[in-house]
């Protein structure tokens, strides 16, 4: 097993790195710096770190104002609060004016450290990708999170960056460059395509191993960018296989599954299914228990793949 890296640690380190190389980068915190690891920047560069209190609506607006004067503000808070508590602010003063604000949405999905449904948002991808001008990115591991941050810092416009809390195995190749809107074919295969994003990609890869043991050839297409979507890679995956299963730690409504279905419905109608949270909120509990209860484990992915292949 490769080494384990937490995306939030990568986030804190990369913010320090970005501030060292770019005088216009600042970080705004919603009083969660020791959770999001923004505290690494707070201690290293207090001149670039702005604690904004427990006031997410103001947090979004202040970042927008900073962007208008030429700064490159990053906001760090929990996905649950960024995607819903300050949604009108993001719509009106960040997305509509296309301002250079990066929304670092930590603790996405349901593995949030025993906090329960108030601190989990299961529909943030659906919400964010429906906003005009908003870009949505969900890296699968630590190195990809860093590569994405480095690339997105120079992107002109608003970005929603979906990050996770706990250490994850590293699966992306060393020195993998991040290219916005570009999918990553992690495994070739001919029977079924597992199209996945975020940390759920790791469980899809495990599932591909399980399926290989059954003689099923699973292609794994990781989409770190949900918007803009790599339509060509999705169509290729559908062409190369018999069916498509989307996998995400997110609701099956409107997230990656919805985005992929929109593309295939328009460009290459394909038998498909969506694995994710089935119109339910999460709860607090140990990670393994959560992953099992909500049907996100590698075993669940493998079983759903078999079901889809056998369905007529």
């Amino acid at each position, binding site marked *: 097993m490769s080494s384990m890296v937490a995306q939030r640690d990568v986030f804190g380190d990369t913010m320090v790195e970005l501030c060292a190389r770019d005088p216009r980068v600042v970080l705004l915190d919603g009083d969660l710096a020791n959770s999001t690891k923004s505290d690494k920047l707070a201690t290293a560069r207090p001149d670039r770190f702005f604690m904004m209190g427990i006031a997410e609506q*103001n947090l*979004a*607006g202040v970042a927008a104002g900073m962007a208008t004067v030429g700064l490159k503000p990053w906001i760090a808070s929990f996905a649950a609060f960024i995607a819903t508590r300050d949604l*009108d602010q993001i719509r009106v003063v960040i997305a*509509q*004016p296309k301002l250079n604000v990066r929304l670092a949405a930590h603790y996405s999905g349901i593995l949030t450290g025993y906090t329960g449904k108030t601190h989990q948002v299961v529909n943030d991808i659906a919400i964010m990708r429906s906003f005009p001008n908003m870009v949505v990115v969900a890296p699968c591991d630590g190195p990809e999170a860093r590569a994405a941050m480095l690339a997105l810092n120079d992107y002109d416009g608003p970005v929603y960056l979906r990050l996770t809390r706990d250490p994850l195995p590293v699966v992306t190749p060393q020195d993998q460059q991040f290219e916005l809107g570009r999918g990553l074919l992690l495994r070739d295969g001919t029977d079924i395509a597992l199209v996945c994003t975020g940390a759920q990609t790791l469980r899809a890869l495990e599932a591909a191993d399980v399926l290989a043991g059954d003689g099923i050839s699973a292609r794994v297409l990781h989409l770190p960018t949900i918007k803009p979507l790599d339509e060509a890679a999705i169509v290729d995956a559908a062409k190369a296989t018999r069916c498509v299963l989307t996998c995400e730690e997110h609701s099956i409504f409107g997230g990656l599954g919805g985005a992929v279905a929109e593309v295939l419905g328009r460009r290459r109608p394909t038998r498909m299914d969506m694995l994710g949270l089935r119109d339910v909120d999460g709860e607090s509990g140990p990670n393994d228990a959560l992953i099992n209860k909500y049907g996100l484990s590698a075993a669940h992915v493998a079983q759903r793949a078999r079901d889809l292949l056998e369905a007529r």
Partner: protein
Amino acid sequence: MNVDIQDAGRLQHLGNDIRRHTLRAVHHAGAGHIGGVLSAADMFAALYFSELRIDPQRPRWEDRDRFVLSKGHCAIGLYVTLAIRGFFPIAELDTFDAIDSRLQGHPDMTKLPGLDMSTGSLGQGLSPGVGMALGARVLGKDFRTWVMLGDGEIQEGQIWEAAFTGARYQLGNLTAILDWNHLQQYGWATDEGYAKSARRDPVESPAAKWEAFGWRVIECDGHDVADFLEACAAARATREWPTLILAHTIKGKGVSFMENDFSWHSKPLSDADLARALAEIDAADNARRSARTEAT
């Protein structure tokens, strides 16, 4: 700072020009907010023709003062002001609210140069103002940030989040102007009930509230440009704290049948309404001009 009497007269006249053009534009578009523009018109004139460090030829000049119209529904008043100031041709005011216009119903900074922030969803303008003021500090720039608030919109909680933060960061380069015109779109009834036109003030004791949040509060008459500009100068001289200019104003100011009537918050103008309103504003200008001639 003492404002020159002639200059004050010129600014008062510009305030009425803003009123006239606003009424014409709203009449032409068949829609638009009036009451809150008429209450802010004199302050628009004083800001854009005296106080703000701006250059109409360089609307994106990095060192310009920033102005955020948090009460974004009064956009037409700001457009008129920008047009008279030379940011774009006055004739373009006829496109207000039309399809493909740069003059949207609420300010859209992606369309019209000269707008420093997109606003419209109320209660959101002060936070970007805090960001601009804080940004000036990070960048080592000396521009100032001005945010105009409506008295109704400060019912939004975000205003107080921003007020708290502005004081916490001691943003002496940030000034908020509260257009205290005492009415909001519909408002709360007095004891007489909602069928009557009287309404309760949108906010009680705003000075005490802002002071409690750590802001310096300066009260002034928002229709007396000299008084208002003195308040601006005092705000500019304040280094340690953000300032709230509490501007006492009249909603619908300058048009007798609109003054203090909440229903003129937003209402189409008939031809007769327009003619009567313009006549009243012209008469007020003429009266002030002859009074000044007599005085000199």
